[in-house]
């Protein structure tokens, strides 16, 4: 990433301009050509710096009020293989292995589920539990009761 890429990120991280030619507007703002703006954005998309471009819905407003972070204490020698399987479940949006923080936190596998009811979220957790079987010693679901901030990445100007 060079300075121009950086400038492109700071110019677009809060959103694209809502004008018929948004990439022209960015080009004008940055003092580069529109072709360069588009070429660089495409390159960032190809390299994975940009995950995707589009609308980001507020999941609460769409009715997904039961956002459960399901957490699992899974045997160390099985967690990677099982994590792959959990990540393939259609209702799991994020799945990671993370370190335990004993004694306060015994869980090493995290899987996010988004549901429109508590019952649905619990049903998803039950499906995860079924996959993990005896390799899982302990589990919990942490529901988010309030979204305090959601801005995404911000790099300094």
């Amino acid at each position, binding site marked *: 990433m060079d300075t121009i890429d950086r400038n492109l990120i700071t110019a677009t*991280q809060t959103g*694209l301009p809502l004008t018929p030619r948004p990439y022209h507007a960015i080009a004008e703002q940055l003092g580069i050509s529109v072709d360069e703006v588009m070429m660089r954005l495409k390159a960032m998309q190809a390299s994975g710096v940009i995950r995707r471009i589009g609308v980001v819905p507020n999941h609460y407003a769409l009715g997904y009020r039961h956002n459960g972070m399901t957490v699992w204490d899974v045997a160390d020698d099985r967690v990677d293989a099982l994590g792959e399987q959990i990540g393939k479940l259609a209702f799991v949006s994020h799945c990671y292995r993370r370190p335990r923080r004993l004694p306060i936190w015994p869980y090493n596998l995290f899987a996010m589920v988004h549901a429109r009811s508590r019952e649905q979220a619990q049903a998803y957790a039950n499906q995860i539990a079924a996959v993990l079987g005896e390799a899982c010693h302990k589990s919990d679901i942490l529901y988010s009761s309030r979204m305090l901030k959601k801005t995404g990445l911000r790099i300094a100007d």
Partner: protein
Amino acid sequence: MSRVRQPRAVKSPGAGFDAARGAACNADGRTPMRKPDPSAVNGLTEMDRRLINQYQGGFPICERPFQVVADTLGISEADVIARIATLLQAGLLTRFGPLFNADRMGGSNVLAAMAVPASEFERVAEFVNLQPEIAHNYRREHALNLWFVGAAETPEKVEAAFDYIESMSGYPVYRFPKEREFFVELKLEA
């Protein structure tokens, strides 16, 4: 690095969602707003749903991208722009634009949590929100009741933000860096 943080344009906790980001996109005040549609369910019309379901990714990079979207949906370019502006203002969208992956920028993205007593919760949550490195922050029902993500260009910046929060609040920040990513893809049906 400097410990003095300038106040940024960060919304106060509890002030709701990030609709202000959308307002920033049409700060010229000229983007036409739509009138409320009486047939809308939860604030979304059938066309809004189609727009949201089809464009959580894949927004085109071309001369007239809104026109491409408009052609797909069978509405006008101006309508697409006005819809997105309205959905942002209403808080139904938190953002419109590119989603960056901090990891791929050589950056860092770390989940962390704190156990904050109820009497201190608002104060600490507000302080956490004020740090520009904190991208997301949620209250969750657990002894660890404040969960947030630090995102910055370098791991050092994230770590410095966590250290700062720890020293100013007096509560430990438990770090949960990802050791392995199995899946990330959040697309919700409207």
